[in-house]
């Protein structure tokens, strides 16, 4: 069912899982909270990667999907006092529907135009949330005092990690099936895929819906972790920036790359805080990403691959002589 080399990669996932499970035993609660944030960014990055990394339909509007999920659960809990076990699935469902609508244009347009439509959707949402029915959505200030799913840094850590790990592993396995190959080939040459007898519309719709599902789930859980929601910071280019940078830095299209990128990004940002406060960090990040992107478009994932291969080859060579 899965492509070759899956077992070796599986080992990596297990090591990663065990290390992450053990983390709260050693780390302070402040560090654990940073990791919670990294987990959520990783979920969003996975969602982006399933769609854009694979099919090549670049989404600049992922915050839109995340925001739809977030707002759905926020409104339902805030106004109707509905329990989370209803509102979160509802949020996922609404996001999947919105995601499908959102991506309908993709059946006609692609490349640049698609990216722009998604960007326009995000900006549109930013405007609408503030203007239309601000007494319900909370307008520019948003909503606060939203219930949390679990309390405490460690519980939130395990919750977010569990979801991230499950989704990540599932998507990683998915891209290693034939379905994954088919999705990936769309990003390489869509006409040729059709000429191979594949229904690309069906495949794209699947990728869109799956991506929206992950974004909706992540978005809903994220805002309950934060306890508040507001249009600024959510339907926002800097949020988009974080997701994009995580994926590109890590290596788009590989699932593991964007997860690495998300961790690298969040951790370095946080650990740099004592030394370089303020926006310099973003400056350094952006520049570092640009340089890396120009030099190695496949990101950290590829760099690690190259390094590992180099060691393995060196080892083999020494053994054979």
């Amino acid at each position, binding site marked *: *069912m899965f492509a070759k080399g899956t077992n070796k990669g599986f080992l990596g996932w297990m090591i990663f899982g065990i290390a992450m499970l053990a983390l709260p035993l050693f780390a302070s609660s402040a560090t654990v909270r940073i990791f919670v944030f990294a987990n959520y960014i990783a979920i969003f990055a996975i969602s982006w990667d399933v769609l854009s990394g694979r099919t090549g339909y670049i989404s600049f509007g992922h915050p839109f999907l995340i925001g739809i999920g977030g707002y759905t659960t926020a409104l339902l809990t805030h106004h109707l006092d509905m329990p989370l076990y209803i509102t979160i699935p509802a949020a996922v469902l609404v996001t999947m529907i919105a995601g499908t609508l959102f991506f309908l244009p993709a059946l006609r347009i692609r490349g640049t135009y698609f990216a722009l439509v998604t960007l326009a959707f995000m900006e549109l949402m930013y405007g609408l949330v503030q203007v239309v029915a601000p007494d319900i959505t909370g307008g520019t200030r948003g909503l606060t005092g939203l219930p949390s799913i679990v309390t405490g840094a460690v519980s939130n850590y395990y919750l977010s990690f569990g979801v991230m790990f499950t989704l990540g592993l599932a998507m990683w396995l998915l891209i290693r099936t034939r379905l994954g190959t088919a999705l990936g*080939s769309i990003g390489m040459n869509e006409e040729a895929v059709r000429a191979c*007898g594949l229904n690309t519309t069906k495949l794209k719709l699947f990728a869109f819906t799956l991506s929206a599902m992950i974004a909706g789930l992540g978005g809903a859980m994220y805002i309950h972790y934060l306890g508040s929601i507001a249009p600024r910071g959510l339907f926002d280019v800097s949020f988009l920036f974080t997701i994009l940078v995580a994926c590109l830095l890590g290596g788009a299209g590989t699932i593991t790359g964007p997860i690495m990128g998300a961790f690298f990004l969040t951790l370095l940002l946080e650990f740099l805080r004592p030394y370089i406060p303020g926006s310099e960090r973003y400056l350094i990040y952006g520049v570092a990403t640009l340089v890396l992107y120009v030099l190695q478009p496949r990101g950290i994932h590829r760099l690690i691959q190259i390094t590992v291969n180099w060691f393995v080859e060196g080892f083999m060579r020494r053994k054979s002589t």
Partner: protein
Amino acid sequence: MSYFTENKGFDTLSATSENRPQPMLEARGLTKSFGGLMATKNVSLHVNPGESLGIIGPNGAGKTTLLNLLTKEITPDQGSVFLNGNCIDRLSIHKRVLAGLARTYQVPRPFHDLTIQEHIRVGMMPDGLFDMLLHGADDEKELKIAESVGLGGERAQQYPYELAMGDLRRLELVRTLATEPSILLLDEVFAGLTVKEIDQISELLTNRRATHSTTYMIVSHDLKALEPLVDRVVVINFGEVMTEGTFREVVADTDVQNAYLGTGWEQE
């Protein structure tokens, strides 16, 4: 095959009244213009089962456009396409492939990040998403198909950027063969190849025809390479069918020679 629209009665009548076999693929009055330019004008032609039809014509004659119309890469302004007597106008590209009508491209369109074997995997891919998800690839069969065009063994793990033009054409061909076409449209399979590469591909096509009785429609500039491969030739000029006949008849035709004069086809 539920997606075929119903055949109109008189079409069948006209086919039988001339007492010729049911064509495998038939174009009736295909017309397509790009802005002011008529790329094909009322083109009608057919290919019989098991036949190999050559399509020749000077540069810009409309040959690629004709293939695009047959596979619905582009939609005709007028005219219809029939497969085994059924009108397939409403079938999209991928459904036509599933129905057995497949093609290669004049400029190869490989998947830059997939190995040769993975190209074959895409070609063999089933239609259903769950099928793709739940059933793994048939490694053995993929390699066997790769082997059949001489890209088996270690070579099956190569990426397109490692391949020379001849191998790229073979890759394009094998990906299409993996869809198990009953009729194969080949667009300039010999362009940019060395004499040796042309021989290899030519042999491959001949063998395939012997083993699978695949029907061909071969577009080529290279008349020398085309000659042994085709039973019949249709000449297209300025988007119109100019003449048709056996290879010898067609090249002896003075109109055809005039159409080609000065376009430099003789040298190719």
